[in-house]
């Protein structure tokens, strides 16, 4: 018999609110300064704040650990499938015995984002715990904000989602406006109005969804089999485009993508350090894309996707260039956020699973290293009293430990390998490269430009670091400043650990998101460019996996167990490989080309910039030339599907022997390919690509499945 505890999500939501109410009841710390060595008021405020935030973090860890239907998950009401820990109560009467439901639940994206939020809020509260003057109000507002943000991630009802989406505005508005910098009032009202404009349109869109679909449940509306989905999509096409556009606009504004980013630099820089950290946590725009916009309006979002990709690339470049031109240290980080969020949006709207997984991981990363940078700058500002880059300098000589910690965050932001940024940005670029939508926008240019963004990020971030930390000490008064104290170590160390943990052990973090990604992007919605040779090889390789001939993907040092959950497309005969993209990539980069391997003849993959690695499969060695041309120019049909051994025997004939074996089995992205393309894809692409790969579509290809609708042609 198993004990079931329900209501953990409501508990998670209301715990911080209770904490905030208790805090507001406590006296303001630092009011009786006479006995300042024993400020019981401050101690009470700090312990209550940290205690409640820690409690919420423990609950979030329980959610994260219990997701997957483990024993813990079962106890907490977690059951299999995408959504776990679901709770549903009647909430607002809608008349005629219809109810708006208090409907909460967590999927793979939610558990990760809730964990991120609670983690960073706890650290922010620890950071605040010293400043006695306003700490009570700030901590209370942070707790309220925590409740609102986690509510957004857990809401399964459109109106409930909207309620939390808007409720985040109030604490952030007050945080910026009451405790911010000199232009705080302007920044606060700008932030509020910008977001409110988008979200009121979203409210209108929600009302229209209710009008057409008769349901507000996100679960129903995003399930293509449900009546609500059909009712909604029976609405006029132009109306649906308007509704989807309203949602996208709201989320785009919240994410601060290029033309709507103007609120972000002001808000980030005028907020107090913890406020900036909390603002970074406002991932609701990104989450809205994957929870609401794409699942409920897949076709409309595909139609809008080129626009979004253009905006995302524009954000990357524009944000990077502006970041490089700033004079204030915080503005650099703020504009770098615009660029990073551009990457995230790009990854989502590639409509490839690898891109989306990378986007969600980068979203998570950005939520760790940017708060770390902001909190670090806060510590620096407390010591030096300035954020002007030209006044700063040589901090490394004065605060060596502090600058080492900042270097970690800087490298994560630059997306250096081993640091968390890399495992996020690389899959995004890969997804962008393989995406049919990106190609429809402008061939390889969007990806190329976005990749320039990573170079630019090195430019502005390293320059930023250099101007603050290196060189001669900026001012004589910097001499003798104290280095990090215990409280600040407590804030920065967990974040540094997370940066490395994500950078090296990303499967631990992505594993929870696999089912969510495949639910958001079913085969019918995914959009991979067919004409790319990389796509051809990847699909081909996947087909061999289907035959069970290559039973294990190339084992990286961190490859986890095979996927546990049934394929959501009913694709039962293909082993569903795990989707932890980044690891094989890094591993592939780390392994040098075997000695003595003949130089590759420059086939299309190399020409197009994809680095095809040397052979890593089953000990056949790197002896065979990985002749991509051979594959492209009509490998005998019979070769496809042979065993690896058989293939390699055939291919030993020499460089001109047509073979695809080496290419297929060694591509770094096999894992991704395995999980992101359906079986019918294989049949089609095989029939299409092998006889005449240059022709995008072969009308004579036997299509034995009707799921072809969403594939790009």
């Amino acid at each position, binding site marked *: 018999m198993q004990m079931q505890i329900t209501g953990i999500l409501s508990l998670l939501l209301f715990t911080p609110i209770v904490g905030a109410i208790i805090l507001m009841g406590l006296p303001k710390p630092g009011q009786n300064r006479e006995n300042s060595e024993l400020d019981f008021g401050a101690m009470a405020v700090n312990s209550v704040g940290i205690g409640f935030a820690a409690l919420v973090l423990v609950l979030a860890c329980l959610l994260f650990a219990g997701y997957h239907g483990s024993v813990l998950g079962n106890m907490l009401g977690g059951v299999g499938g995408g959504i776990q820990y679901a709770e549903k109560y*009647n*909430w*607002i*009467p*809608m*008349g*005629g015995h219809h109810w708006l439901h208090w409907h909460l639940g967590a999927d793979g994206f939610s558990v990760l984002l809730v964990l991120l939020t609670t983690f960073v809020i706890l650290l922010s509260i620890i950071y605040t715990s010293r400043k006695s003057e306003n700490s009570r109000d700030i901590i209370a507002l942070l707790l309220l904000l925590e409740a609102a943000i986690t509510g957004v991630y857990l809401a399964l009802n459109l*109106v409930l989602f*909207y*309620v*939390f989406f*808007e*409720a985040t*505005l*109030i604490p952030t*508005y*007050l945080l910026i*406006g*009451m405790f911010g910098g000199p232009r*705080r*009032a302007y920044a*606060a*009202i700008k932030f*509020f*109005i910008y977001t*409110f*404009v988008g979200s*009121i*349109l979203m*409210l*209108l869109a*929600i*009302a*229209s969804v*209710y*009008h057409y679909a008769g349901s507000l449940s996100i679960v129903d509306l995003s399930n293509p089999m449900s009546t609500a989905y059909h009712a909604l999509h029976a609405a006029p096409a132009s109306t649906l485009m308007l509704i989807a556009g309203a949602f996208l606009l709201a989320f785009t504004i919240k994410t601060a993508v290029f033309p709507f980013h103007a609120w972000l630099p002001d808000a980030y820089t005028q907020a107090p350090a913890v406020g900036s950290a909390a603002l970074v946590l406002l991932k609701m725009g990104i989450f809205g894309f994957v929870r609401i916009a794409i699942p409920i309006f897949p076709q409309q979002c595909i139609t809008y996707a080129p626009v979004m990709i253009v905006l995302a690339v524009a954000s990357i470049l524009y944000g990077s260039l502006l970041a490089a031109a700033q004079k204030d240290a915080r503005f650099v980080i703020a504009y770098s956020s615009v660029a990073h969020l551009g990457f995230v949006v790009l990854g989502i709207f590639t409509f490839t699973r690898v891109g989306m997984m990378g986007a969600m991981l980068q979203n998570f990363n950005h939520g760790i290293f940017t708060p770390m940078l902001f909190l670090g700058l806060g510590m620096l500002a407390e010591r030096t009293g300035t954020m002007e880059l030209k006044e700063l300098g040589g901090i490394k000589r004065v605060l060596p430990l502090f600058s080492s910690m900042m270097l970690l965050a800087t490298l994560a932001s630059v997306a250096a390998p081993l640091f968390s940024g890399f495992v996020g940005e690389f899959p995004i670029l890969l997804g962008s490269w393989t995406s049919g939508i990106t190609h429809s926008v402008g061939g390889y240019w969007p990806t190329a430009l976005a990749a320039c963004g990573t170079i630019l990020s090195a430019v502005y971030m390293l320059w930023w670091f250099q101007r603050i930390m290196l060189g001669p000490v900026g001012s004589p008064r910097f001499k003798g400043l104290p280095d990090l104290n215990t409280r600040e170590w407590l804030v920065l160390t967990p974040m540094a650990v997370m940066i490395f943990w994500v950078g090296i052990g990303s499967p631990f973090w992505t594993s929870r998101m696999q089912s969510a990604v495949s639910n958001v992007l079913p085969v019918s919605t995914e959009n991979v460019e067919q004409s790319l040779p990389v796509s051809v090889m990847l699909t081909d390789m996947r087909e061999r996996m289907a035959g069970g001939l290559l039973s294990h993907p190339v084992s990286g040092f961190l490859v986890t167990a095979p996927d546990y959950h049934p394929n959501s497309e009913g694709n039962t005969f293909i082993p569903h490989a795990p989707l932890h993209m980044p690891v094989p990539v890094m591993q592939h980069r780390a392994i040098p080309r075997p000695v003595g391997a003949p130089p590759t003849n420059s086939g299309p993959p190399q020409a197009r910039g994809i680095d095809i690695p040397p052979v890593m499969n089953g000990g056949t060695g790197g002896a065979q030339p990985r002749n991509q041309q051979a594959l492209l120019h009509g490998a005998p049909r019979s070769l496809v599907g042979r065993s690896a051994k058989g293939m390699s025997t055939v291919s030993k004939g020499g460089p001109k022997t047509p073979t695809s074996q080496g290419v297929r089995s060694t591509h770094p992205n096999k894992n991704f390919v395995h999980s992101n393309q359906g079986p019918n894809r294989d049949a089609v692409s095989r029939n299409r690509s092998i006889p005449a790969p240059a022709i995008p579509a072969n009308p004579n290809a036997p299509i034995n499945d009707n799921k072809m609708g969403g594939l790009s042609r």
Partner: protein
Amino acid sequence: MTNFQSLNAILPVVIIAITGMIVLLGESCLAFWRRSASASGVVSLLGVIVAGMVVLFRLDEPMLHYKAFNGALAVGPFTQACTLILLLVAGLSVLVALTYLDNRGLNQGEYYALLLFATCGAILMCAANDLIVLFVSVELLSVALYILTGFAKTDKKGQEAALKYFLLGSFAAGFLLYGIALVLGGTSISGLVGTTNLTTMTARIPDTPSFMFMAGLALVLVGIGFKAALAPFHMWAPDVYEGAPTSVTGFMATAVKIGAFAALLRIISHLTGIAHFWLPALEVIAVLTMVLGNLLAVTQVNVKRMLAYSSVAHAGYLLIAVCACSSTVARPEALQAGLFYLLAYGLMTMGAFAVLVYLSSRNHDCETVQDIAGLVKKEPLAAYLMAVFMLSLGGIPPTMGFVGKWLLFSVAMQAHLVVLAVTLAIVSMVAVFYYLRIIWTMCFQDRSAETVGATSVAPTGVQITILISAAMSLVLGVLPAIVYPMLSAAQTLVNHL
């Protein structure tokens, strides 16, 4: 119903009226009454509470499904729900006045008596099933309010406001009466004597009503629109709201609107058969009211005046519920949404005015934005609760104003009133700007020399009002289902036409 049963059915009104008379007589006749400053207020409060209890205990009585006084008054659940909201508002107003009058040294007894009579008028407006009764109750409400507006006899602004209100109000009353006469004429078809009874009138409306009937209805709409401060009949509202004593403004802004909209909802629900005749007019008025109210509120520096324009805007929002009554499908939800919004509007407006009363001192009414600049330093709780009311008025979750706005959006879409829904969305963006500016002034600005502190008199009454309003705004914002019995009552209005 016999007369006794009818009287029994409107027992809450009777209790309120008798309490008002007791207060009036006690003030003038009993010497000890004068010595204790707040006796009138306490007695009035008791009367309101007893009346409220009576309503609450009799919510389910089957007798209430009939019409009292030969069909002149409908005493069904809709009336009961409106009565409860009005009694809540009246009780809060009495509590506010306990502090305010003491503070300003104004006379006590007449104030409470007038307030109670006005409440009687408002309740009867909600119950009126006959246009003549409606007219009488409008006058009962208005005359009491004319006097209350000018209650501060030495205040020139108050006198001006009272005169303006009286002149324009009388003019509007003329419109209303003339409209009723035209309706009486317009319903006398095929040899029958004309009627002003709504139930009888519904049965007589032909598919294409006569011009006289429609003109009469239009004039009735003008009369009620004046009371509800709908554009373009809203001109009086800012001046009167600004000039009247703050405690009166709070009552005027809420009670009149509740009464007027309850009457409007009832009349319109009887006219769904000819919706295509009045719906375009009401839609135009709704859009105009929403846009004008919000745009004019943006530039105000006087908080009372800003709240006056905001109340005009909210009248526009409420008109959406009225328009949605045109669709038979959406009508039950529209009535519910309207009632819920009235309750929400009543609570948040009353709370906002109560905060202003709390901040007023003996010789200075807290009115302008300078008065509240940097308030959070001196009176943090008052500032935060004012922020709650502003956010609720702006329709930001998790407050009651949001739930109300959501219900309005939802009924507007159900009734295919897309233009109104879009307008509501757009003006909400404008609205949030000026509500936020109040929070901005209170919380983000530095204190100016004029920033007022709390009143010197022990402000118990107004504190209770603020706390009740804020608590209800927040609790009903999170758990609106608490008032579900009351909301569902609105539907039975339709069932028992």
